């Protein structure tokens, strides 16, 4: 297995249109794949051009996302998250 690059989702809770699900904020996952750049939807939503922004598929363990409430800690959740929502991180304890 190649080394995982871990990223943590920002915990911000701004009002308005964002594409980062609330249940993933503050959670740490690893890059599943990089998807290239897409216009920032938070700008598109308000009729602006949309700055090209890298989009990544990030994989989280269910243990990381739901803690003890996870149905099966080994299962995973993948989501597409824009780079400005992500910061470098250490591997979480749960994985």
């Amino acid at each position, binding site marked *: 297995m190649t080394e995982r690059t871990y990223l943590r989702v920002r915990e911000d809770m701004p009002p*308005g*249109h964002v594409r980062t*699900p*609330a249940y993933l904020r503050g959670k740490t996952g690893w890059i599943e794949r990089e998807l290239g750049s897409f216009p920032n939807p938070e700008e*598109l*939503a*308000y009729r602006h051009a949309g700055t090209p922004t890298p989009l990544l598929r990030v994989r989280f363990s269910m243990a990381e*996302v*739901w803690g003890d409430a996870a149905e099966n800690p080994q299962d995973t959740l993948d989501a597409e998250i824009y780079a400005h929502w992500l910061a470098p991180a250490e591997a979480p304890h749960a994985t």
Partner: protein
Amino acid sequence: MGGTAAGPVPDASHDFALWEKRVDALLVIASSEGHFTVDGLRRVLEDMGEEAFETMSYYERWISSVNQNLIEAGVYTTAELATKMTEVAARGPTYGEAASD
């Protein structure tokens, strides 16, 4: 809404009515013409809030958002919409009578 508690997944389904298909088509056409983006559609849907989710059907929410986006884009004005909706209502009580074609 990911992760919130909810009951069983409903298994009822329905065939789309013509007016629902038209809403879908208007969205695809108006967004491909550059009058708004899918994110603009979603932004208005989200701003409508939880109550709309409970009280309006899927395509009712969509036409509401499509309309809001088209007014914001300047495709037509609120006054033009108001005049047109009054005109449509005056044609008759059913969809078949009120549709112009």
